[in-house]
C-alpha cells in the first residue's frame, strides 16, 4: 500500500498548513496552486511530495512560448511527410505521429503520479484557460485519432506561480491555493539544521540574525530568500568564518562577509552600503 499522506521528507521541512494543503489536494484530487516568494521551495515541493509518497513525477516546465496543446500531444506532420516520401508503412496510421506531452504521460501512468506544472505564469495569459477541462475532468480529446484520453488515476497536480501574471478566475476556482509564507525564525532553524547538521549553534544564531536584519532593509529589489541563506551558510562554512566575525560585522554597521550570496543586485548592495554609511554617521 502506498503512502497516502504527505508528512515532509528528510530533505524538506513542510509546515503544518502546507502538509494539510497537499493532503487535501490528494484526497479530493484537485490541482494545488502554490505561490510564494522566489526561493521558498515551490518547485521542490512537487519533487519531495513525489519522493515522500513514492509516486512517479512528471515535470512540465512552462516557458513564454509554451502552448497548452504541447502538454497534451503534438502531431508531427514533418516526419509523416518524410516517411511518405520514403514509402514507410507506418505512414498509414496517423497515431504513429502523435507525440505525447507531459500531461498525457501522467494520465497514462500505471500508478497514481504527481504532475508538476512549473511557473504557469510565464506562459501566455490564455494558457490556464486552455487547460480547464483537462484539470477538471482529467480528460482530453485527440482530434487526429478521434480518441478520448482519460486519466487512469487522477494525478496529483501541483502548479507553481511567481505572480507575474494574474490567473483567470475560472482556473482558480478549480484549484486549491496555498501561499508559502517566508519561514519564521524557528522554521528556518529547522531547515538549516536539516541541511547543515553540524553547524555550530552560535554561528547559526549570528548568521540568522544578520540574514533577518538584511531582509528588513527597506527598498531592496530582491530580498534574500531561503535558498540564498543556505548558499551563504555553505560559503561561511567553507571559508571557516567564526561567529565573532559575524557579530562584529553587526549588519547595521558593516556589510557582512560573503554578502554576494545574499544580495544579488548591485543596486541593492549600493543601497545597503549607503544605509550603513548613514547609520555609522548617526552613531557618531
Amino acid at each position: 500500500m502506498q503512502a497516502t499522506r504527505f508528512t515532509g521528507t528528510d530533505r524538506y521541512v513542510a509546515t503544518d498548513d502546507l502538509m494539510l494543503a497537499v493532503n487535501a489536494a490528494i484526497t479530493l484530487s484537485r490541482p494545488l496552486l502554490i505561490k510564494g516568494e522566489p526561493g521558498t521551495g515551490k518547485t521542490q515541493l512537487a519533487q519531495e511530495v513525489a519522493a515522500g509518497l513514492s509516486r512517479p513525477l512528471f515535470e512540465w516546465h512552462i516557458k513564454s512560448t509554451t502552448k497548452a496543446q504541447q502538454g497534451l500531444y503534438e502531431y508531427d506532420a514533418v516526419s509523416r511527410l518524410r516517411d511518405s516520401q520514403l514509402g514507410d508503412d507506418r505512414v498509414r496510421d496517423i497515431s504513429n505521429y502523435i507525440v505525447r506531452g507531459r500531461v498525457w504521460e501522467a494520465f497514462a501512468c500505471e500508478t497514481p503520479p504527481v504532475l508538476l506544472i512549473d511557473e504557469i505564469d510565464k506562459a501566455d495569459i490564455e494558457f490556464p484557460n486552455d487547460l480547464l477541462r483537462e484539470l477538471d475532468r482529467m480528460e482530453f480529446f485527440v482530434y487526429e485519432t478521434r480518441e478520448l484520453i482519460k486519466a487512469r488515476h487522477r494525478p496529483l497536480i501541483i502548479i507553481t506561480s511567481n505572480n507575474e501574471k494574474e490567473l483567470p478566475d475560472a482556473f482558480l476556482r478549480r484549484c486549491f491555493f496555498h501561499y508559502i509564507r517566508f519561514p519564521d525564525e524557528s522554521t528556518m532553524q529547522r531547515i538549516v539544521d536539516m541541511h547543515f547538521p553540524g553547524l555550530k549553534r552560535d554561528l547559526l544564531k549570528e548568521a540568522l540574525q544578520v540574514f533577518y536584519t538584511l531582509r528588513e532593509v527597506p527598498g531592496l529589489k530582491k530580498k534574500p530568500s531561503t535558498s540564498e541563506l543556505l548558499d551563504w551558510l555553505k560559503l561561511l562554512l567553507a571559508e571557516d568564518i567564526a561567529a565573532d566575525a559575524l557579530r562584529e560585522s553587526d549588519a547595521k554597521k558593516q556589510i557582512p562577509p560573503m554578502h554576494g550570496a545574499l544580495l544579488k543586485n548591485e543596486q541593492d548592495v549600493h543601497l545597503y552600503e549607503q544605509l550603513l554609511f548613514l547609520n555609522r554617521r548617526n552613531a557618531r
Partner: protein
Amino acid sequence: MLVRFFLALRSAGIPVSTTEFLALLEAMQARVASHSVEDFYALARLVLVKDERHYDRYDRVYADYLKGIQTSFEALAQGDVPADWLRSKAQLLLSPEEQAAINKLGGFEELMRQFAQRLSEQSGRHEGGSKWIGTGGRSPFGNDGYHPEGVRVGGQSRNQRAVKVWDRREFKNLADNVELGTRNIKVALRRLRRFAREGAQDHLDLDATISATARNAGYLDLKLVAERRNAIKVLLLLDVGGSMDRYVRLCEELFSAARSEFKHLRQYYFHNCVYESLWIDNARRHQQRLPTTELWRTYGPDYRLVIVGDATMSPYEISQPGGSVEHWNEESGARWLARLLSAFPHHAWLNPAARESWDRTASIGMARDLLAGRMYPLTLAGLDQAARALTSQ
C-alpha cells in the same frame, strides 16, 4: 452549515463561488483535516481563498465568525482613511528600553474602540508622534510604528506585533483591480495586435506544402514561412510627477501590461507637456535627456504614439513660449505637440483623470483640440477606443 461563514466571506469581498464552498464541504466530509479550529482555518483558506491579497480579509472574517464578535468593521469603513497618510515615509526603530517603556493599552476591545474614536476625532495626515493615526509613530494605530499592541493600518508589517491587522490599503488596491487590472489591460491591448510574418522562414506551412507536393506529382516539396509576430510598434510617452502622482499605480499597471504585449515598445517621460526634450530614465531626468526631434529621426511613422498624461496644467504651459514650470522653453508646448503628432499619424492620448472633469479643465480642452479629439479616458472602454483609433488606417 457554514452558510453564514460563506456569506460573510462574500460580503467581505472575497470572490468565493458555490463550487468552492461545495468543495470545502466535500473536504470536510472526507475528513481531510482534524476537527481543530486551526486545521479548519487552514483548510477553508486553502479551498476558498485563491489570492494571498485576500488572506488578511479572510483572517478577519474568520475571527469574526469564530468569536461571534461584531467588529466595528463597518463603522470603521465609513470613516475614510486617506491612503497617503499611510504611505510609509519613515520607519521608527526604537531601542529595547524604549520599547519596554511604551505601555500597553487595555485589551483588544479597548484598542478597537479607541481606534474608532480617534478616527472620528482626527482630520488630517499625521506622521510620527504618539497619539494620532499615521505612519512611523508610537500611537497604537497606524503603520510602520511601534506600539506593543498596535493595530496596523496599511503598508507592510515590519515589527510584527500588531494584535490584529486591519489593513485598509489592500482593499483600495483591490477595488482598482476590479476596474482595470493588468489582465484586463492586456486583453484590451490585444486589439492593438496586428500579426505579420517577418524574419527567418522557419515554420512549416502545411497547406502550402500539401498543395506544392500535389502539384509536384507527389514528390515532397516543403514550404516554410516566417513565424507570425505582432508587428505593432509602440512609442509610449508618460507624464510623470506633479499632478500625475495620484495615477502612478494605474500607469504602472498599464505599462507592465504593455511591456509584455509588444516586441517593439519604447518609452520616454515628460512633465505636464512635451517640449524640446524628453527623458529616458525617470530617475535621472536631468542627466539623460533626448531631444524631441530625435524621436522622429529614430522611429518611423509606423510607430503608434501613445501619450499618457492627465493634461492638467496651466493653459500657458501649452500655449506660451516660456510657459513650462521647469525650464524656459523657446517654443510653446502646442508647437512641439503638433510636430510630434504630425510625425506620428497614428496617435492617441490616454487620460487617467475622470472623464467628468475634462470639460472643467481648460488645458485638457486645449490638448484635445490639438489631438483632434483623440483623447480617451484610461479605463477599459477608453483603452479599447484608443486601440481602435490606433489601428485604423
